[in-house]
């Protein structure tokens, strides 16, 4: 009988580095036994800017998580983000070869092979192939085996990454633990934890608006139809306020947290707020409306960019979906209203699953919770002998030899 297994999930964000440690046991039981969240340094917009600083804070987070869980981690799952990740739909077709036009493994294999046949440049590496529904003579089918038809079409949402950026992140983790179990797209793990199977069937757009990036994933018919990343997040709001009012970063952050609102209240009158409110030296007052206008401009643009990215898929699939948001930026007041207006769909902030404790019911933990769920799926598949995931080495085949 398979023994229990300790796993760790790591999210290297711009603002925070989060780790969750869980114990997996047969048949598919999951128990969260440790966690850590430390301020991030040296990472911005999904990229490592300062290896030394990033390494220090990641290692600190791992040590704290190990201490909290009372176990030593030998390996870790990790998520990746940043606009260096590019996704595209790759399609391959094959004629059904069986005389009775019954689709066989051979036909599907040829279609899949053709879909995946794409040579990236030396600086890029595929990190994820996400299967979309097969089309058998133009009709969507989940599993085409044994069905009759003339032509089978396989399609994948394929995501590739900048090899150098990915290598840097993996090296930071590898310098502490001996192995990386798997790497996930941030948008996928967050989408997994926030949505139900029903939502993914009916269509849902999940946005994770973090400090440095906004990751999004669009589901329809239960499949991942597209993913994307914009290098825009809460830090941009802070930076905008800092530039607008010519104040230091920390002061701008305070204004954002204390008075941030996605939509300004227009009309007569305006409230003025003090930076610290104690009338001490250096305290200044600001127009609340001005603060909100700066934030509104940034958030409106962000949602417009997301809308522009997903619109071709929405139209192609004739999808009517809703939006779910998470990430630190969703703490902004009235963000659902603005998202709904700009995205032109019902929008709400997502919640982590009810089965997690209150301390983990924060947007910053969605990512690692999603990773743990994927890890549990992997674990269950492996003990039942039906593992489908290619694992890290399968995903980034040939990566280390480049």
């Amino acid at each position: 009988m398979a023994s229990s297994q300790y796993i760790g999930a790591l999210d290297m964000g711009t603002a925070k580095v989060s780790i969750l440690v869980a114990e997996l046991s047969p048949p598919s039981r999951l128990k969260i036994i440790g966690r850590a969240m430390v301020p991030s340094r040296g990472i911005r917009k999904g990229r490592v800017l300062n290896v030394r600083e990033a390494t220090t804070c990641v290692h600190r987070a791992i040590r704290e998580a190990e201490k909290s869980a009372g176990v030593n981690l030998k390996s870790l799952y990790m998520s990746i983000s940043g606009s260096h990740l590019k996704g595209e739909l790759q399609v391959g077709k094959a004629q059904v070869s069986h005389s009775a036009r019954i689709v066989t493994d051979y036909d599907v294999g040829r279609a899949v092979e053709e879909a995946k046949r794409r040579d990236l440049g030396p600086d890029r590496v595929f990190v994820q192939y996400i299967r979309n529904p097969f089309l058998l003579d133009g009709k969507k089918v989940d599993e085409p085996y044994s069905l009759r038809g003339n032509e089978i079409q396989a399609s994948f949402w394929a995501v590739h990454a900048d090899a150098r950026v990915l290598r840097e992140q993996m090296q930071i983790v590898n310098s502490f633990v001996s192995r990386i179990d798997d790497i996930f797209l941030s948008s996928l793990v967050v989408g997994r934890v926030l949505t139900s199977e029903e939502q993914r069937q009916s269509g849902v757009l999940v946005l994770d608006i973090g400090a440095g990036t906004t990751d999004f994933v669009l589901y329809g018919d239960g499949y991942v139809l597209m993913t994307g990343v914009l290098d825009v997040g809460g830090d941009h709001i802070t930076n905008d306020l800092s530039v607008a009012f010519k104040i230091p970063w920390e002061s701008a952050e305070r204004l954002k947290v204390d008075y941030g609102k996605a939509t300004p209240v227009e009309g007569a009158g305006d409230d003025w707020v003090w930076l610290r409110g104690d009338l001490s030296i250096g305290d200044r007052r600001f127009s609340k409306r001005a603060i909100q206008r700066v934030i509104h401009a940034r958030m409106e643009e962000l949602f417009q960019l997301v809308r522009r990215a997903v619109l071709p898929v929405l139209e192609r699939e004739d999808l009517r979906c809703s939006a779910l948001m998470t990430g630190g930026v969703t703490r902004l007041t009235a963000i659902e209203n603005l998202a709904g207006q700009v995205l032109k769909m019902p929008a709400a902030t997502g919640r982590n699953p009810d089965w997690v404790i209150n301390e983990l019911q924060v947007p910053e933990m969605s990512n690692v919770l999603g990773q743990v769920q994927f890890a549990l799926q992997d674990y269950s598949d492996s003990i039942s002998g039906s593992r489908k995931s290619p694992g890290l080495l399968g995903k980034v085949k040939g990566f280390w030899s480049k």
Partner: protein
Amino acid sequence: MTVSLKPVSDVKIGVIGLGRTGRKILERMRVRPAWDVDAICYDCDLEVMGVSNPWFGCECLGVGMLHGLGCGGQVELGQSVAFGSEETIRAWLAGKSMVLMLLGAGGGFSGGFAPEVADWAREMGIPVLCVACMPFSFEGISRIDSARRAIDVLRESSLAVVTVELDDMLLWAGDESWAQPVIELAIDWMQEAASSVLSLILEEGLFAFDLTTLRQVFDLGFSKTLFITGEGEGEKAVDDAIQQIMGFADFRLPDSEVIVDRMLVSLRGGASLGVADVNRINQTISKRFRKPARSFFGATIEEKESKVTIGVFLSIGLGGGEQASASAPDAAGAGESESGLVPGTRMRPSKPVSGEKGDAQGYFDVLIRDSNRGVFEDTEPNLVNGEDLDVPTFLRRGIRIKT
């Protein structure tokens, strides 16, 4: 018969220091004996008058009304003192080619007195250049509002109001700073602004610079003018001075998101200051402020001077300046460089909203620039659809923000 090779000049400049701040500035000004300057300090508070100074006189006004006491922050009292002393002031103004007025805005005396003096000077055809200090925000809303009103009124009557903002200087100095050293620093900057203007006009410099040129610098009409200064001594004097200028500029005008319409660089140094240094300073500063539409340069050399001091005046039109600018004579003094307008990149002056003069000062129409990236300066451009998303959205979309 003696023939003088120096052109005869009948320029007579008057310098008025108002209140305690005005007096402190006058005391610190570096004035050369050869300069034909008539300086005076006015206040209604006898305590401020103190001991007279060799190079400027002191006069306590409104004694009959206030009995030698201050205005207690009441602008109306300062105005009354001005009305009661109109004859005296007009007599002092008579014959002046230009007046420099130095004050701390926000005070009752200077806030009420200065606008009246500037108005009388304008009636008499005398250009007035004001150097004023904005109070700290923590001094209270009424004092800030009073200072803003005074500055707005002064802007309408003056060539320009050069403002030094204590809030900025405090933030620049860091959270650990005390108010008093910041005030002293502001006074130093204000005296440097005044001294450099006098030096440019009254000294024979590397470039000819006269009152006509000065008028061209500030002929924007209703405008906001900032002053930044830096100084250095020894082998790295020029580098140090430039570094100080850049340091404050980066803080106050990060990446020049506010486009400067006029710039005047005033340079003062000793015999060791070479033409190469002058060119380097000019190029570095012009580049930093993205070659304003019109920039002017003046440099004066004093053999015994061991320091290099750079002063930069930056003027930004707030509306009403286009007409004034268009009617200004084209003749430019030596040392002026025309960088011309870059299509699509000029700031449109924001006209003050009718009946809301107070708001005009805080509004800037800012425009799309590719380098207003703040903390993202060191990261690669974040290009999406041809726009760098690291540049604040409100800048790229030209949204007005009340600062």
